[in-house]
């Protein structure tokens, strides 16, 4: 960011330009939201209406009723799957990243490289082998399958982000704890993790969001529609009722509620995650 603050006329112009750009960029979201409150009939009117003339909340109400349009169950499934994946990722990644930041153990470089490479992995490489593995483990068609698979996206990301946080904590803090009689484990749990808390939150958010957005694992490893996550539910619905846009757009809005909430309350964490995770590696 430039040091000197821009004032006066050019400030006003830049503000207007940026708002226009924002409106253009977020138009798809706005349009989806508007459409979800229109009746099926109104959606097909040409020229399109810019706000719902007849407010239709059917597409939302139907989602909590029984029947084909029920998305509440899928939403709940997604929530359970994403939370599970997030917990596994955080619990495993926090100590791992501390190890990479603080210790020069055998195989450190190779392991770090391993975490980096997994971030580049296309999902199709893992799908079939995981499918066979989960069938053999008897967890195919249960929540466990996508939970275990989704955690593999969160772990490498979290390790790479968090190692920077742990590396920035002064060593003296840890040494003081040892002098006071702390074991390694105690110092890690009681002193280091609390200091690295912002980083842990970033990891939790991203691990959750990665799992929330997943379609391939949820669709491939779960057969029963009632157990599938919301992304797979939407995809399935699109195949069956391709042009029921009023329902489809309402599903889309419901599916992004958690994303929106996380964004509103934790925007700074997200930006720090995007910049740290991707550039520094």
């Amino acid at each position, binding site marked *: 960011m430039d040091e000197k603050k821009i004032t006066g006329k050019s400030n006003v112009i830049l503000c207007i330009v940026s708002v226009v750009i924002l409106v253009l960029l977020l138009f*798809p979201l706005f349009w989806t939201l508007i459409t979800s409150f229109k009746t099926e009939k109104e959606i097909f009117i040409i020229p399109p209406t810019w706000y719902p003339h007849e407010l239709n909340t059917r597409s939302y109400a139907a989602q909590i009723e029984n029947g084909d349009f029920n998305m509440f169950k899928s939403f709940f499934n997604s929530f359970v799957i994403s939370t599970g994946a997030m917990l596994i990722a955080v619990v495993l990644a926090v100590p791992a990243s501390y190890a990479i930041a603080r210790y020069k153990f055998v195989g450190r470089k190779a*392991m770090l490289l391993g975490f980096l490479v997994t971030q580049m992995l296309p999902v199709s490489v893992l799908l079939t082998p995981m499918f066979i593995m989960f069938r053999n483990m008897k967890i195919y068609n249960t929540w466990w399958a996508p939970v275990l698979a989704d955690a593999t996206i969160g772990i490498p990301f979290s390790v790479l982000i968090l190692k920077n946080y742990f590396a920035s904590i002064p060593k003296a803090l840890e040494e003081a704890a040892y002098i006071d009689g702390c074991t390694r484990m105690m110092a890690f749990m009681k002193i280091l993790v609390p200091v690295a808390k912002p980083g842990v939150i970033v990891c939790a958010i991203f691990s959750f969001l990665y799992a929330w957005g997943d379609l391939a694992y949820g669709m491939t490893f779960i057969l029963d529609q009632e157990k599938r996550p919301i*992304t797979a539910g939407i995809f399935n619905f699109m195949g069956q009722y391709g042009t029921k846009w009023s329902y489809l757009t309402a599903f889309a809005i419901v599916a992004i509620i958690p994303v929106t909430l996380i964004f509103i309350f934790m925007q700074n964490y*997200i930006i720090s995650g995007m910049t740290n995770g991707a550039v520094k590696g």
Partner: protein
Amino acid sequence: MKKVKDFFRYENAGLLFILPAFLYMLVFVGYPILSNLILSFQDVSVKNLVHGQKHFVGFTNYLQIFGDEVFRKAMGNTLKFTVYCLIFQFLIGFLLALLFNKNFTFAKTVRGLTMIPWMMPMTVTALMFKFMFSTDVGIINYILKCLHLIQNNVEWLTTPRTAMIAVVAANVWIGIPFNTILLATGLTTIPQELYESASVDGANGWQQLIKITLPLLRPTIESVLVLGFIYTFKVYDLVYVMTEGGPVNSTHLLSTYSYKLSFDLFQYSKGSTVANVLFLILFIVGLLYLKITMQGEED
């Protein structure tokens, strides 16, 4: 026993902290990579997927894949898709980064809000763009007609030539925030004094961009492009939900074709083979990326 204890006493104590995560990744990622490789040298269909004899067939799958017209098409599509996406998302992202680098009242707030598309589930993005690009109700056809750019509604997603444009547009929408935020972060590392002294010497904005911004931003630009390549080259959900690779395979990417072979046609070995080709390309590009980023790092 004492020896074991000594081994883990100093630096190797780190192993105890990293082992759980490492083993997890070994089981759920390492092993699948290996078994996918083996799968591509076998002949596995729905009959012998979980149980039964799996025969080794050497390079047969690879030879067949490279003779497969759809595979070659998917390979070309993947490259086209990636290059188009990279060009547009980089250019737009760069312009936005330059804008948000200025210190005006709304800069921070608006920059934050432009990140939203990046966080959305790809399935939702695909749905939104499918709706906007649809023939009769699509807002894009309506706007283009209002601007007199087209006479009749374009069948975006059911015409081979235009379907690619639609999926590229959707992916660029996701990619813009990613490019913006990384380039904007890179811009903040350029010392302000350089611009000030250039102004004193009479350099205009364009000259400053060419002579100061671009050369100093080069490391960031390199990593943004290589990372963008990796993320775009393996895109799967977006295209699968929007077009399922159609019409007439015109939007099939390596990732969607691999999925189709394995889970629609149940030719698991062929699907694995395509996935391995995709992985190999990403791996090579990935090594390039590591070379760029690791240079400055202590490890």
